[in-house]
């Protein structure tokens, strides 16, 4: 009987077969890449067409932007990942959000000495709109949130903290854990919080409440008011929206950046 698979000849044959498979494998990947390249070109054309018809819509209509972003997220595409991406180049979404990022940074920097780097989304929104001027196009709070999410990549501690029905935006790398966040949320009602309030609402012990408040003081996020009736009040300037909405000008915001 003919014995298979032994001897030098068989080994050589096997090597040849393996090499052929390898080659084939590389060819397969190459094929798929070529296919992807072709599809990419087609997609680019489709996107161009879409842009020529609806680019204005994206620019002018915040609800449409939300829809657009959500759809992208659903299929696993990030239109804001790179300024070099198709979405950014053709729809102009990139420039819109990246510029907004710059404006957000400037506003936060300008107000940091007052609120310690914590600001409500509303106030941020107001200040950004002011800085943009009358003729710039409208931005929504959703737009701000998306821009901030992208800014996180820069490593400087941008955070979004849900409080009440809205959000606090953190722009300095202060350590804020769950306890701090919860107290911030409690303070949202009146703009300040007291130890007793924390104890009653959150059922904490005095020491735990004190520690959290001290930390907020240290980070410059809270101010201590020893002259308040009853016990000490811990105020959060970040929540003083009415007081600050008139004060800062666009120049101030820009100058604040070193």
């Amino acid at each position, binding site marked *: 009987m003919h014995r298979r698979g032994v001897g030098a000849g068989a080994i050589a044959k096997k090597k040849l077969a393996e090499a052929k498979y390898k080659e084939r494998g590389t060819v397969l990947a190459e094929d798929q*890449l070529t296919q992807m390249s072709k599809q990419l070109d087609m997609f680019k054309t489709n996107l161009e067409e879409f842009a020529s018809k609806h680019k204005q819509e994206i620019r002018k209509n915040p609800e449409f932007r939300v829809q657009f972003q959500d759809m992208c997220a659903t299929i696993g595409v990030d239109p804001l990942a790179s300024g070099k991406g198709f979405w950014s180049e053709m729809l102009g979404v990139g420039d819109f959000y990246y510029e907004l990022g710059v404006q957000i940074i400037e506003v936060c920097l300008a107000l940091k000495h007052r609120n310690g780097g914590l600001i409500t989304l509303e106030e941020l929104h107001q200040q950004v709109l002011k800085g943009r001027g009358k003729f710039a196009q409208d931005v929504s709070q959703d737009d701000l949130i998306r821009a901030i999410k992208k800014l996180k990549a820069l490593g400087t501690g941008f955070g979004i903290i849900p409080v009440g029905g809205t959000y606090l935006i953190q722009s300095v790398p202060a350590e804020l854990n769950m306890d701090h966040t919860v107290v911030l949320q409690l303070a949202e009602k009146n703009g300040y919080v007291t130890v007793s309030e924390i104890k009653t609402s959150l059922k904490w012990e005095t020491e735990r409440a004190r520690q959290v408040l001290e930390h907020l003081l240290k980070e410059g996020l809270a101010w201590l008011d020893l002259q308040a009736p009853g016990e000490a009040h811990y105020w959060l300037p970040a929540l003083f929206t009415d007081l600050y909405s008139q004060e800062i000008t666009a120049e101030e915001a820009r100058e604040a950046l070193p």
Partner: protein
Amino acid sequence: MDRFTWTSGLLEIKDTLVIQQRGIKFDAGTLLLSTHRLIWRDQKNHECCMAILLSQIVFIEEQAAGIGKSAKIVVHLHPAPPNKEPGPFQSSKNSYIKLSFKEHGQIEFYRRLSEEMTQRRWENMPVSQSLQTNRGPQPGRIRAVGIVGIERKLEEKRKETDKNISEAFEDLSKLMIKAKEMVELSKSIANKIKDKQGDITEDETIRFKSYLLSMGIANPVTRETYGSGTQYHMQLAKQLAGILQAPLEERGGIMSLTEVYCLVNRARGMELLSPEDLVNACKMLEALKLPLRLRVFDSGVMVIELQSHKEEEMVASALETVSEKGSLTSEEFAKLVGMSVLLAKERLLLAEKMGHLCRDDSVEGLRFYPNLFMTQS
């Protein structure tokens, strides 16, 4: 020609623009054909716009061009209906018009017009703004000026916007389906690459990454958003090295990434960088042997420094400054030295890490003292 009526020039809902041709004579304008009407708009004065219902057309014929004459289409019309809305002429003895095509396009236009005449689509799709048609007793609306006219304009605009938006959403959905196909394809390629570790060339990897970059798809293999290593980021890194040299020197050799982001994007004005673009480019600085580098502090703060900048040496001078003043907070130090509070803090923290400074952490803030435990024991 009394069959024309003045119109706002908007296409009605369910009107579809079939073809458009410029250079029609009645003092140079644009002729638009829709499923319901023939519209003429003055090229110079866009407000001047008139239309004729296709249902008014009996018959059309071509007139070939001759020497000194441009090609024409002659449009024969029904008599004008009694309560037709106002137009350029109140009465006319002719029952036809001639469309003169100065910039060609007559053949195509004739073909389309004939098509529309045959299909008579306007009969299937009743138009919202009711102009007199030859069927049934539809009351023609008297066009009023003043508030009613304005309201009507707004209504038309609103409808147009709604139409635009729903059209936009439709187109968007179609586009997303195609985008999803791209995502699937990239996943399948990524799987192939994973299986054949080493069999895919570097070239192909680079190609693949750049495709992912264009689409905004996260790299399925490494999970980084398309990661560093694309050509684009390499070029960007080189550009940055050029742009940032001078600003860095002005600022003592070090800048936070946030500052860089603002500086670079403000300078660009358009085609801005995304935060991720910046980070990925900076990650490549050292590998490309450029005179800057990215540095990440323990706190997570990211900075760009000149290669020549030695933060550790700066710490020595920081120690001197603090010793002179007895103690300093980050804010005080920042003010003295002229740097941002963020970077001042990092420097003091580094000094502390190296054992030169001690901290005093209280509700009054974080204050640094020279580490006497080290020097005096």
